[in-house]
């Protein structure tokens, strides 16, 4: 029995328990209590398994190679199916299982008004299991299978509330373009197999870098790259994400933005850092940084033009993924750790924001920014939690978005100086400007949803149930913790993961036996980079704490000593004129600036750009498919010319 509790089994447990839960809910899901218990328990066990692996994998630097049925490699050939967990996989596994767990807790009360809840939880756990399987797998065909499972579950869940405006449409578009991506992945996998005659990821990583002159390998790379890009929703696949996030239930939006996109990023990292090992090439760094910057800027401007809360968040999601991709594409230790730190933070704050959007939807029945307003008096907790998320994503110190963005700027600018390439200065500027535009759009959201005037039809809105607030609170606490203690995050999570990413040989050797990497790769072996970490700036919590105390004190003083008069309600129920709003003598006709017109001064100067972008995102499936095919062709051309 104790043998089964050995930590080497934990990866398979954390995947299996989710799938097992999915099947159990199909059987036992009629009972409400049992259904919720199974779902939360499955997500919880999965998270616990991941946390238990922190010590051996992150701190001791072990790489867990787990062969199904103990079919270890024979004669230098991997025969069995394997799972491989290094620090990078575990990092993504951890953030995924955290998001899954919190979202699961939230779902329990959030979905209570819907029909077919057992099916929801089954699909939910399938999606979670698919993503976990993807990041923990050590076999490229299994990665494909998991990609299919998660695409399927995500599509079904997007269409789950099929009465919602546009849900079916979003699901169909996502299905078609997503399956084009999956087809690309499958074709890429099989072309690699044709060249290397193995499907094991580590062995492929040992063989493929030596074959890069072969054209079919280059094509395979392009196919896989585009395939995983569709999963990460980076430009030009961002319209799908926007549609899908907007239509899906909020708890699923959390998974799509926090988990699905991360799995795509994970795939891209595995391809570029491990399988093909092309990150050393300047042109390849340029590719990733370019895509990242375009995603970052284009999506943040698209977000500024949105009228729907969740659709706006969806565009921000891609914008933040752009940050991650840019930082990862720099190919420096600090850049990489900044990138995955931002990935972690993005999961936390975007999860929080989506849950807040879900709370608003749950209570008011709409997410249209032009209809909402003034909810802060009715939903004070949700407002505070939303503000924490909004400050985090806009990078306001001391929340977590600031810590990671700070590192990203530092990394970009250092890269610019090191490489002497002035283009990276532009990258830094784009990063910083995107950040302030992000802030602007969250000012817009808070003004038009939580502050401003409360429309009369929402007079009876109440705070959401405690279970949903609990889930949001978990994300909020994590946002603050990861923002205040970047050193701890670095020590336990990002630095080991970054070290692992720069140590492809260690990954190969752990799987295929010591010395395999050097013998297989031969002259193509990149010596493991010496990864040096330093803090981009030291954050001293003590001085912040002092300031916080003084602020609290000052607020209390002002609040207590201020002279207040009791508000005298008139007989009509209206407040007296003194405490009413000032309308400069006009009749009290209220006209709020609509959410989408809030930044008129900015938009006016960019009107041609905005109208062009609006026309470009036509919503026609054929256009999006065309973008995908063009992206694929460009990727193939790029690979053939550059590599």
């Amino acid at each position, binding site marked *: 029995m104790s043998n089964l509790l050995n930590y080497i089994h934990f990866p398979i447990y954390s995947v299996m328990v989710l799938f097992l839960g999915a099947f159990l809910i199909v059987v036992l899901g009629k009972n409400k209590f049992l259904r919720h218990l199974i779902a939360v328990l499955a997500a919880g066990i999965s998270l616990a398994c991941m946390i238990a692996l922190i010590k051996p994998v992150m701190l001791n630097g072990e790489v867990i190679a787990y062969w199904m049925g103990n079919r270890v490699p024979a004669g230098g050939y991997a025969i069995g199916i394997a799972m491989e967990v290094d620090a990078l996989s575990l990092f993504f596994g951890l953030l995924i299982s955290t998001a899954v767990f919190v979202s699961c807790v939230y779902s329990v009360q959030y979905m209570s008004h819907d029909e077919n809840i057992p099916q929801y939880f089954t699909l939910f756990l399938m999606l979670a299991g698919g993503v976990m399987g993807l990041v923990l797998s050590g076999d490229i065909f299994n990665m494909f299978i998991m990609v299919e499972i998660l695409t399927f579950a995500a599509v079904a869940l997007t269409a789950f509330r099929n009465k919602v405006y546009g849900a079916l449409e979003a699901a169909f578009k996502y299905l078609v373009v997503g399956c084009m991506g999956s087809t690309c992945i499958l074709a890429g996998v099989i072309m690699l197999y044709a060249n290397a005659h193995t499907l094991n990821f580590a062995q492929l990583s040992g063989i493929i870098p030596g074959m890069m002159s072969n054209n079919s390998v280059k094509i395979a790379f392009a196919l896989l790259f585009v395939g995983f890009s569709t999963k990460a929703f980076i430009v030009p696949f961002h319209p799908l994400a926007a549609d899908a996030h907007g239509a899906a239930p909020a708890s699923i939006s959390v998974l799509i933005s926090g988990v699905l996109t991360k799995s795509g990023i994970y795939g891209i990292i595995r391809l570029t850092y491990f399988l093909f090992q092309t990150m050393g090439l300047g042109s390849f760094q340029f590719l990733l940084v370019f895509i990242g910057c375009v995603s970052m800027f284009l999506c943040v401007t698209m977000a500024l033009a949105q009228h729907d809360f969740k659709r706006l968040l969806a565009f921000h999601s891609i914008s933040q993924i752009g940050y991650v991709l840019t930082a990862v594409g720099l190919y420096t230790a600090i850049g990489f750790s900044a990138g995955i730190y931002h990935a972690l933070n993005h999961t936390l704050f975007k999860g929080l924001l989506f849950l807040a959007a879900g709370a608003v939807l749950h209570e008011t029945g709409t997410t249209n920014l032009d209809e909402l307003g003034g909810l*802060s*008096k009715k939903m*004070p907790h949700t*407002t505070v939690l939303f503000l924490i998320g909004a400050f985090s994503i806009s990078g*306001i*110190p001391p929340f977590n978005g600031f810590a990671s963005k*700070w590192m990203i700027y*530092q990394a970009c*600018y250092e890269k*610019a*100086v090191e490489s002497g390439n*002035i283009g990276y*200065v532009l990258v*830094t*500027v784009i990063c*910083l*400007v995107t950040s*302030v*535009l992000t*802030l*602007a759009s969250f*000012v*817009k959201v*808070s*003004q038009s949803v939580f*502050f*401003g*005037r409360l429309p009369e039809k929402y007079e009876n809105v109440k705070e959401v149930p405690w279970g949903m607030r609990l889930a949001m609170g978990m994300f909020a606490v994590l946002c603050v913790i990861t923002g205040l203690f970047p050193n701890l995050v670095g020590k336990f999570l990002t630095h080991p993961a970054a070290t692992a990413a720069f140590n492809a040989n260690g990954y190969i050797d752990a799987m295929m036996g010591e010395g395999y990497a050097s013998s297989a790769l031969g002259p193509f072996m990149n010596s493991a980079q010496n990864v040096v970490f330093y803090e981009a*700036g*030291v954050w*001293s919590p*003590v*001085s912040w704490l*002092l*300031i916080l105390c003084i*602020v609290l004190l*000052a*607020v209390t003083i*002002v*609040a207590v*000593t*201020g*002279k*207040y*008069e009791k508000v005298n309600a008139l007989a009509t129920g209206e*407040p007296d004129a003194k*405490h*009413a*709003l*000032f309308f400069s003598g006009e009749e009290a006709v*209220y006209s*709020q*600036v609509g959410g989408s017109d*809030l*930044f*008129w*001064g*900015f938009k*006016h*100067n960019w009107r041609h750009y905005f109208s062009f972008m609006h026309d470009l995102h036509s919503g026609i499936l054929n256009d999006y498919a065309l973008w995908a095919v063009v992206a694929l062709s460009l990727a193939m051309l790029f690979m053939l010319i550059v590599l």
Partner: protein
Amino acid sequence: MSVILNALVDLGYILIFPGFLFCFLCGMLLCGIERKIVARMQKRVGPPILQPLYDFFKLCGKETIVPTVANKTVYLAAPIVGLAALVVIQLFIPVFNFTAFAGNADIIVVLYLLLIPALAEIFGAAATGSPFAGVGLSREMVTIISCELPLVLVFLAVGKAVGNAIGSGVVFSLQTIAAYQAENGCLLFKASMIPAAIAFLLTIPGETGMHPFDAAEAETEICEGMLAEYSGKPLAVYKLSHAVKLLTLTSLFVALFLGGLGTGILLVDGLITFFFCVVVIICVVALIDASTARLKIEQLFKYYWTVVSGLAAISLILAWFGL
């Protein structure tokens, strides 16, 4: 024992110099001087220099009227948070060779902390639910976006210029910039930094909401916009924040471009900094304030993203090629 002592010293920094007290007095003085100078330029007598101080205490004695539709917590907390952020920046800005909180002093941090006062004002205004505040906050946010690009470019240019000179690639630390200037003289006298300095000076009126960039406040048009519903102590704190922001931005200018003229004696250095701030205020802010009329918000945006950013970009490119 030493922990307590350090904490006390920190507390002293936060509360007295260069924290709250220093900010309070110098900010108010600067504000008074600015008003006086503008009045003289317009051939008016103008208020006494201590007028902002009198206003502050008078406002503190007034009743605070919280509108019934407002979110009281946010309404009351916003001014304080904004002020605290300004004080924090002041703690990070080196006074020649002295920095209260060393190690935290980084240009990027300052850039982000500079957002907080405006942001606090925006959220406070949003919490009142007033339509005037709605228009005001919209314009304030656009002003922030406008000023951000030139500021970023200026900071990157300075970082690169200092990095070039001391041969370590790039420097974002304000302390290192101060140390560099102490050895090699002011950055203002470097040819490549002059456009950046001008760009920074032009952003000061925008950040502090002076003419012609005061579309967000526009008393005659939208009743002071974001402050429309504020009264009593919170309003006093806002007025103080505006004054402190003037001090913060000018002393940041001094730290970035006019460093290296210190004497090493803290008190004297503080006075010299203040003197420079006054000079900057008189020569630039007051002059622009007195001689221009309000721009429309879209003109403001265009101006900052073309003219001022262009200046800063020239500086960055010059610094890049080591001039």
